[in-house]
C-alpha cells in the first residue's frame, strides 16, 4: 500500500531524510518512531504530497503522490499534530465540509458522518460547536473526520499528544476497530512507546534521517536484547537529548498553550 524506496530530502546542505526505504502492507498499522529532528515529519510530508522529495520514489496505492496529487489525496486522510478543526462550527458541520472537499456524495456523507460520530462517541454532541469540546473530543473528531471519505491510508502525526490515558486508550480502540472492519492502513508517528507497542503491527525507527531498525515489536526487542520497546528505542538511538532550535511553529504552539486552559 505504501512503498518508499531510497527516499532523500535535502534542505540546502542539510540532509533531513537520508536514503529511507520501507514498505507498509494494506491493513497494517505501522508506527514511525524517532527522536526529535529525526526526519519523521519530513517523511510524512513527502508521503502526503506536501513536500517534494529530492530523490527516491514514493508509491501510495500504486500512485506517485507528486505526479497525481489530487488522486492520491482522495485516497488518504491525514490528522496533523496541530488541530485543524473549525472552532465556530459544529462537529456535524466540520464533517460536512470535509465530505464536500473530498467529493463524497451527499447521501454517503450523511451516512458515514452518522456512523463515524456514533463510533467515536460524538453523536450526542454533533450540533455543539467544536470550541466547547475537550481536547480528547477534538482529537476524536479529527480522526473520525479523517475516516469520512473511506481512505485507503490514514496518516496520524502524534495523534495522542497531550491526551489523558483514558482518551488515548479509547481513541486507539476506535482506530483499531476501523482498521479491522475497513482494512484502512494506518501510518502513525508517536513518542509514546507503549502505544506503538500495543497498537502497531510493525514499527520503523528513524534517527538522523536514516532507518535504524524495522520490524515487529518483538523483533526489535530481540534485536536489541531489551524487554520493552522503549528500551529498544533508546538502545538504537542513544540517550542523549536532541536539542532543536524553536521554529516559528514552536513559538506559536507555546503561545497557544498560554491561552488554553
Amino acid at each position, binding site marked *: 500500500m505504501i512503498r518508499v524506496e531510497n527516499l532523500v530530502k535535502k534542505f540546502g546542505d542539510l540532509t533531513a531524510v537520508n536514503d529511507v526505504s520501507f514498505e507498509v502492507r494494506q491493513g497494517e498499522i505501522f508506527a514511525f518512531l524517532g527522536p526529535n529532528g529525526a526526519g519523521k515529519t519530513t517523511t510524512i*510530508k513527502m508521503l*502526503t*504530497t*506536501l*513536500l517534494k522529495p529530492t530523490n527516491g520514489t514514493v508509491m501510495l496505492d500504486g500512485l506517485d503522490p507528486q505526479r497525481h*496529487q*489530487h*488522486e492520491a*489525496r*482522495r485516497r488518504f486522510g*491525514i490528522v*496533523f499534530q*496541530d*488541530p*485543524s*478543526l*473549525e*472552532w*465556530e*462550527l459544529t462537529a456535524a*458541520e466540520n464533517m*460536512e*465540509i*470535509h465530505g*464536500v*472537499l*473530498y*467529493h463524497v456524495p451527499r447521501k454517503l456523507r450523511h451516512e458515514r458522518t452518522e456512523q463515524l460520530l456514533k463510533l467515536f462517541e460524538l453523536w450526542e454532541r454533533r450540533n455543539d*460547536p467544536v470550541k466547547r469540546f475537550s481536547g480528547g473530543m477534538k482529537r476524536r473528531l479529527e480522526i473520525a473526520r479523517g475516516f469520512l471519505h473511506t481512505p485507503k491510508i490514514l496518516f496520524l502525526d502524534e495523534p495522542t499528544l497531550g491526551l489523558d490515558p483514558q482518551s488515548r486508550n479509547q481513541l486507539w480502540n476506535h482506530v483499531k476497530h476501523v482498521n479491522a472492519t475497513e482494512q484502512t492502513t494506518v501510518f502513525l508517528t508517536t513518542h509514546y512507546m507503549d502505544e506503538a507497542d500495543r497498537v502497531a503491527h510493525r514499527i520503523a525507527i528513524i534517527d538522523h534521517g536514516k532507518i535504524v531498525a524495522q520490524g515487529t515489536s518483538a523483533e526489535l526487542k530481540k534485536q536489541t536484547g531489551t524487554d520493552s520497546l522503549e528500551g529498544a528505542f533508546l538502545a538504537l538511538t542513544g540517550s542523549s537529548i536532541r536539542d532543536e532550535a524553536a521554529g*516559528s*511553529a514552536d*513559538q*506559536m504552539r507555546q*503561545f*497557544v498553550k498560554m491561552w488554553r486552559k
Partner: protein
Amino acid sequence: MGAVYILWLREVKRYLRSHAQIVASLGQPLLYLLALGFGLGPVFQRSGNGSYLQFIAPGVIGMMVLFTSIFSGIGLLWDRQFGFLKETLVAPVPRLTVVLGKTLGGVTVALIQGTLVVILTLIAGFRPGSIAAIPVAFAFMALIALVFAGLGTAIGSRLQDMQGFQLIMNFLVLPIFFLSGALFPLDHLPKVLGAITTGDPLSYGIDGLRGALIGRSHFGMATDLAVLALVAVAMLSIGSYLFSKIEV
C-alpha cells in the same frame, strides 16, 4: 462548485457566530465617527467645508471594510498552522478553489460589517444624498473589500510569525487608512502628502464612496472605479499566486 460554496459558507458562519468580536469591532469606527465627527465638526464647518459628520461617514465605512477585509487575509497565518485552513491545503481541491471561496467569504463579511457601520452612521445623523446612492456605495465597498482581501491574502500567505503582524498593522494598514482622505479632504494638500494620498488605493475607494453618498468626489467616480478595478485584479492575482505557494 460545491467546494467554493462550502468554504464561503464557513467564513460567513464563522463570522456570524463570533458575537463578541462583532460588537467589539464596531467600537473603533463608532469612536472615530462620534469623537471626530462631532469634535472636529465646528472647525470643519467654519472652514466652509460643511458638516464633518457627513464628510467622515464614508471614511468610517471604508475604514471598517478595509480592516475587515485585510485581516481576513492576514488571519491566514494562524489559520494555516492551527486552524481549519490546513485541512483545505491537503484536500483534493485546487488551491485556486480554496482561495476563491475564502476571498468571497471575506468580502461578504466585510460588506456585512460595512453595512453595520452604515446603520451606525445613520443613527448618528448621517444622511446620504439619495436612496439610489446605496447600491453604488455598495459597489465601491465591494471593490475596496476585493482589493484588500487580495492584499491581506498575499501578506498572510508570506507571514512567518506573529511579530510580522504588528509591523504590518502599524506600518501598513494604519497608514493606508490615515493617508486615504478618509478623515480629511484631498484638495489643496501639501505636495508630498498629496502624492502619497494619490498613490493609496484606499483613497479611490473612499472617494468613490463619498461621491456616491454625498456627491463629493476629488478624483471623479469614473477614475475611482477604474483604479479600484485594476488594483483589485492585481491584488487578487498576487494573493492567489502566493496562496498557491503556501507550504503546510
